């Protein structure tokens, strides 16, 4: 009996490792292999074409350039916002702070569509202005501009950066600023000589995270950037899908993996440094009293609300607003197979697909993520292997979805494992993206269980299974719900990997939205809007569920 249990436990260790080995390490290794020898012979032509071609160099330069600008503008906007959140009390403060999870569950295609609905050529603002001033052409021309890409990147990352900086700032001692003020520091000196140096670790960490996210930006740039702009991610996609130039795609992927790996390692180090700072007298937020303070607080909140909520509201309104009146026509179109459609199936079918894949992903990610959390937390086998596996859970976060998709295409389309024509690649790819979120949710809850609880149960005669069922499972259940919801929402919105591995007859909602957006005609555009709204509602629902169940500090990134 004891032996069965012990072997069972080792089986539980092997399961997630096998999963990651087969569906993560193997595809990534294949990309490595492919970039050095495409057809069985050593061949650096992939790298050679990148090194010699100004075209690819431009891609790399643009990727770094837009990521740097996005990071700069995000931090610039976040700093005064963080000041307001740390120093002032106002209604909705904690709700707005909790929005930092939103970008993780908000699909890129939905956000892209939302911004098109707000300021695109057929967007609310443009149609309103055209009606108002009797214009022939839309006055706001932002599609396919760097400006739009930057705006959307700031939208995505503002709340994440805000959360990191506010959390760190709130933990600093209020006495420091008091002391500086007593010593006669003016407003300018307070920022340059006190706040910014003190906040440096948090600002660097936030900036690095924003850089990582925008460096690997795919959906936003693909949809909003047009052919003029391509990040590495988008270039990998073009090379693979449009040009079938796999060696170049693999080489580009490899470059990106290495850059991301370095960035992630640096980020993990920063995070460790930040967590060690603990102080005694935290800054206590107070109400804004003077009119200047009210203006400052109000101004920042205006930015937050306009930036975060306007596009989403515009999306909903635009999907219901047809030729000057409200109508559900775009939604009813979803059930029909429009003639000359780019799709093989009615859009409604994609919703069913997405939900089915979402449920499968949730199941796989919850099982794998929980097992990984147990493994990292050294709760499964006490071999202290946790430390070595800990970075492994972060690894898929560092690897972009596009890289994953490419790896799947390269590795899993031929024996020994040929899954290229199978739909199972979709939930598997989604699970790889979602599993770290589950693990990161469960791990803190697991670590919070004092070792004496399972020990007490054991001394009272409980078997290992009963301890898990009656003690541990109830104590991690909230985190499990959070992780499962994350997994579901991520699967529903996942775009980068799906666009590589989905077959034409099993599209997901984001894929359908993307294809519809690429087509002319009001009907296609309308369907894209309607489907984006549906996806948005599911994701907002998931977000609310996560916020309801998540305890302070659970599942932070």
């Amino acid at each position, binding site marked *: 009996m004891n032996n069965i249990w012990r072997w069972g436990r080792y089986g539980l260790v092997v399961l997630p490792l096998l999963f990651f080995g087969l569906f993560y390490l193997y595809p990534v290794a294949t990309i490595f292999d492919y970039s050095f020898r495409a057809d069985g012979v050593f061949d650096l032509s992939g790298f050679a074409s990148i090194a010699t071609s100004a075209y690819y160099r431009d891609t790399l330069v643009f990727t770094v350039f837009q990521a740097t600008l996005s990071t700069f503008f995000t931090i610039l906007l976040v700093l005064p916002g963080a000041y307001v959140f740390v120093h002032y009390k106002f209604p909705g403060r904690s709700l707005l702070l909790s929005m930092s999870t939103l970008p993780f569950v908000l699909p890129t295609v939905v956000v892209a569509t939302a911004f098109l609905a707000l300021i695109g050529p057929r967007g609310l603002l443009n149609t309103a202005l055209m009606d108002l001033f009797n214009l022939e052409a839309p006055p706001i021309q932002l599609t396919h501009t760097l400006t739009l890409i930057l705006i959307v990147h700031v939208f995505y990352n503002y709340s994440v950066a805000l959360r990191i900086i506010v959390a760190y700032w709130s933990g600093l001692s209020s006495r420091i600023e008091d002391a500086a003020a007593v010593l006669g520091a003016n407003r300018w000196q307070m920022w340059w000589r006190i706040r910014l140096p003190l906040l440096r670790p948090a600002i660097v960490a936030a900036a690095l995270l924003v850089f990582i996210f925008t460096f690997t930006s795919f959906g936003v740039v693909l949809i909003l950037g047009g052919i003029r702009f391509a990040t590495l991610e988008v270039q990998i996609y073009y090379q693979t899908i449009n040009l079938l130039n796999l060696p170049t795609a693999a080489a580009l992927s490899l470059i990106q993996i290495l850059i991301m790996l370095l960035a992630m390692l640096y980020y993990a180090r920063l995070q460790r440094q930040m967590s060690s700072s603990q102080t005694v007298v935290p800054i206590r937020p107070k109400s804004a009293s003077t009119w200047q303070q009210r203006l400052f607080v109000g101004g920042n909140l205006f930015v937050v609300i306009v930036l975060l909520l306007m596009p989403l509201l515009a999306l909903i309104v635009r999907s219901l607003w047809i030729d000057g009146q409200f109508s559900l026509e775009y939604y009813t179109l979803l059930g029909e197979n429009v003639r000359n459609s780019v799709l093989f199936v009615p859009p409604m079918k994609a919703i069913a697909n997405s939900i089915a894949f979402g449920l499968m992903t949730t199941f796989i990610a919850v099982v794998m993520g929980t097992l990984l959390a147990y493994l990292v937390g050294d709760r499964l086998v006490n071999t202290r292997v946790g430390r070595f596996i800990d970075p492994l859970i972060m690894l898929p976060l560092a690897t972009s979805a596009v890289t994953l998709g490419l790896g799947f295409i390269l590795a899993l389309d031929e024996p020994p494992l040929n899954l290229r024509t199978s739909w199972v690649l979709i939930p598997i790819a989604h699970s790889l993206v979602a599993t770290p979120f589950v693990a990161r949710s469960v791990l803190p809850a697991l670590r919070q269980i004092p070792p004496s609880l399972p020990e*007490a149960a*054991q*001394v*009272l*005669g409980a*078997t290992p299974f009963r301890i898990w069922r009656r003690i541990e499972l109830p104590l991690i259940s909230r985190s499990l719900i959070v992780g499962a919801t994350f997994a579901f929402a991520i699967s529903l919105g996942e775009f980068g990997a799906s666009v590589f591995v989905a077959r034409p007859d099993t599209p997901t909602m984001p894929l359908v939205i993307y294809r519809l957006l690429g087509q002319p005609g009001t009907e296609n555009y309308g369907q894209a809007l309607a489907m984006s709204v549906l996806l948005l509602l599911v994701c907002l629902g998931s977000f609310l569920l996560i916020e309801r169940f998540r305890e302070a500090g659970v599942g932070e990134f």
Partner: protein
Amino acid sequence: MLELKNVHLSYGPNEVLKGISLNIGQGEIICLLGQSGSGKTSLLRVIAGLEQETQGSIVLAGERINGLKPQQRHVGLMFQDYALFPHMSVAENIAFGLRSGKMDAQQVRQRVDELLHLVRLDGYQDRPIDQLSGGEQQRVALARSLAPRPRLLMLDEPLGSLDASLRETLVKEVHDIIKLAGLTAIYVTHDQQEAFVIADRIAIMQHGQIEQIATPQELYYRPHSRFVVEFLGLHNVVSADCEAIRELLPDDTAREFLIHPKGISLADEGLNAVVTEVIFSGDRTAVTVEVPLCGSWRFFVYDPLIRLDVGQQVYLHIDHEFIIPLANK
């Protein structure tokens, strides 16, 4: 009842228990007393099966239990942090150990009521754990470990996290509950007052070894070693070659002796000493004197009419019954 023979425990090169041998009789309460890091808790964990001893044998009620898993040992262990299950009610916590056995719901309920009555928490069945005070949590934890009628009850600093006044009343209560249930128990503490109240015998532990095991009286009046003397705060250790009292010393090979405070009294003539410190504490006065060439001693004066001043010359009478030879290191 419980027989430990030469029990060792190591974490890698770090030896935590260095050959513990101990016999505990049926219905006896043994107290493990020592500073933190002396191995008290480790010994409990080895007996409970939560740590695997590197060597030695553990026999409980005639059965060798070395290889058994904790859930097979049928011992009770009350944790220092109580380890109450936060997601269960008081009754569910207490019933946890009963469900593993073969009792029906009615019997379980009855046993829970019985235990709550024993720890004087009648009516607390449905309270959530986080609404209990520290003292109430302590009693629920005690009830939970008593519930499955363990063959041996072990308590790891059960009053450690409570404040002093509460501790004083609870320690007697815990003692009475254990005795009432007729249990054999091992009680770990670092507080000697607690140990004196609760223990039939006290084992002083240091560096993973038992320094001395004896009844509280024997331990206090016949400490074996300098460590025990210092641990109990008895102070007055003199070297065998101390001139002034040489003729009083018993014929013994010991190189150090304890002049027990109980054996020192003021006299009209005798050993010459100078008062260096006087601390009045109500029913008694602690007096420290300097005995030429023999170091400083402390003893107690109980007569409130005697007044002493620092620097004053006094004569001491030493009762040779209270000169105790200490083990040579």
